[in-house]
């Protein structure tokens, strides 16, 4: 009996150590990837790098047009996904009465979230670029990214709205406020941090996605900054991809590639950490 007990103790020890080691391997990989790129590329970062146009076939100079392009696409996609996403979530949590309909819409949202990003690219190409004749442009890319981000906003907003206590709504309604007044003055403000989390996560995603903008918005090299919604733009993720895989100066521009990667990582991590901190505080506030 004792030996059997000792054996199961030993197995427990071995398995727990294995689980710990495996977890640390993954975390180590994360630290290594981010750390390696920062180590290799920080020397490329300078004020000129983020504020100047590329020069000499992009072998020198800065990445201003790519930064601006990504910025435009983030704003554009937010203008599409935020209003539609928030209103959809309001409808689902505050209005929809038939459970079957809610279920179908939720299923639609989760399926939309699962559509591969390159398929969104195809969709954007067929609908916005070709059918609506926007061409490869900021507006086509923004619409594509906006649609891609809808599920992110809807889910975050829905979660936030559902955590607003029912008593808030009842109190407001019993004081004579209408349903709309209750939603806009009581429910939405209480849910704001949760909604902002969704907004931040979606902005980060819009900044980092490459496949959806490859055929809808991004250009290899633009000599001028974009001047209208219908201009092609350079964008950070596409810029990294292009410089790392195409052209004749792949090796010479390695440090610029690392530099661009750092800017993109910093941008995305910043947006995501703001989002996560907001969510964390929001959940804590609701509990406490």
């Amino acid at each position: 009996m004792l030996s059997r007990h000792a054996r199961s103790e030993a197995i427990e020890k071995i398995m727990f150590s294995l689980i710990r080691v495996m977890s640390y391997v993954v975390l180590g990989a994360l630290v290594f990837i981010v750390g390696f790129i920062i180590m290799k590329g920080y020397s490329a970062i300078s004020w000129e790098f983020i504020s100047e146009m590329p020069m000499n076939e992009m072998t020198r100079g800065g990445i201003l047009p790519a930064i601006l392009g990504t910025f435009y696409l983030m704003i554009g996609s937010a203008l599409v996904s935020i209003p539609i996403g928030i209103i959809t979530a309001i409808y689902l949590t505050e209005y929809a009465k038939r459970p079957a309909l809610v279920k179908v819409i939720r299923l639609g949202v989760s399926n939309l979230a699962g559509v591969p990003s390159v398929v969104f690219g195809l969709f954007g190409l067929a609908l916005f670029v070709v059918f609506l004749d926007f061409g490869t442009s900021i507006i086509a890319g923004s619409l594509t990214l906006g649609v891609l981000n809808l599920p992110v906003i809807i889910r975050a907003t829905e979660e936030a709205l559902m955590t607003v206590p029912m008593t808030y709504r009842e109190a407001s309604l019993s004081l004579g406020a209408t349903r709309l007044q209750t939603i806009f003055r009581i429910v939405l403000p209480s849910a704001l941090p949760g909604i902002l989390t969704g907004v931040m996560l979606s902005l980060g995603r819009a900044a980092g996605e490459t496949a959806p903008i490859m055929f809808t918005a991004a250009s290899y090299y633009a000599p001028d900054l974009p001047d209208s919604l219908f201009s092609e733009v350079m964008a950070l993720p596409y810029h990294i991809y292009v410089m790392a895989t195409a052209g004749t100066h792949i090796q010479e521009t390695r440090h610029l590639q690392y530099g661009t990667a750092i800017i993109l990582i910093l941008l995305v991590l910043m947006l995501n950490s703001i989002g996560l901190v907001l969510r964390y505080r929001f959940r804590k506030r609701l509990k406490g």
Partner: protein
Amino acid sequence: MLYLLMDTGDIQHRIVETAMAEKTKRNTSIGMSLIAEKIFEKFFMIIGLSCLFILMLIMVFLFSEGLPILKDVGINDFLFGTQWYPTSVNPRFGILPLIAASVAVTLLASFFAVPLSLAIAVYLAELASPRVREIVKPAIEVIASIPSVIIGFFGMVVVAPFLQRYFNIDTGLNLFNAALMLAFMAIPTIASISEDAISSVPMSLKEASYALGANRWETIFHITIPAALSGIWTAIILGISRVIGETMVVLMVAGGAAVMPGSIFDPVRPLTSNIAAEMAEAPVGGSHYHALFAIGIILFIITFFFNLIADYLSSKYKFKGN
């Protein structure tokens, strides 16, 4: 007494209805705002249906741009043809090598990702102290947020040369490398959903196991994980679905050769990377263009089914209450 039997939604509904009815009686200006309420409700509903509308639009455009290729090639030759020469004078549109590449990369990536993700899930749910959890959980979410082009870039400039030297192979850009990078990307999805499932196993089950003399590992292995299995399957299916649809990593790292993979160190060309690599050169409305959309249809259908299965599993088996 009757109210206790009704759920809160119902009660809220009642309150709203009464409040509205009361007001209509009171005066007409409120009657006006009631009309506004009605208009807004309709407006919200139309927007609320937009996701379904968009899904439908995606299908309409994929199918209308993708199906024409089947007229030229035929579904059998398209799905099971082994030659992909879209731009030659006598073009061939057989996507079997691309399907094989996607399947191979996905299987190998799952082989790496599933054990690692489950280890993290068990670690977070059962072993880690609250302080460690507070660091590890966000760190896992950070992995999920790293843009795929960055992971692909890392695979190209760091992992590929390393593999080439260490395994003495022709190119480090191959199936193995792509699977490694994809596994890393799938880990957050699988780990966080599994962790939710494992944490939601009722304490009473575990206590019963301890009471019978099982130690912590035996309880985890024989009680907690089996009880959380449907959630874990949901997690794995969603993770795999993400791997199949991932584009930039395989585009940059998998090597790009449209031939049947023979070993795990062969360069391959999965479905997603094929679309991304060739769409720029495919003239709009040509056979090549239609063929790439048809590949999009296949990806859409696969991920659609995976999501339906995941959704079914997660709603079917859930611990009710506590």
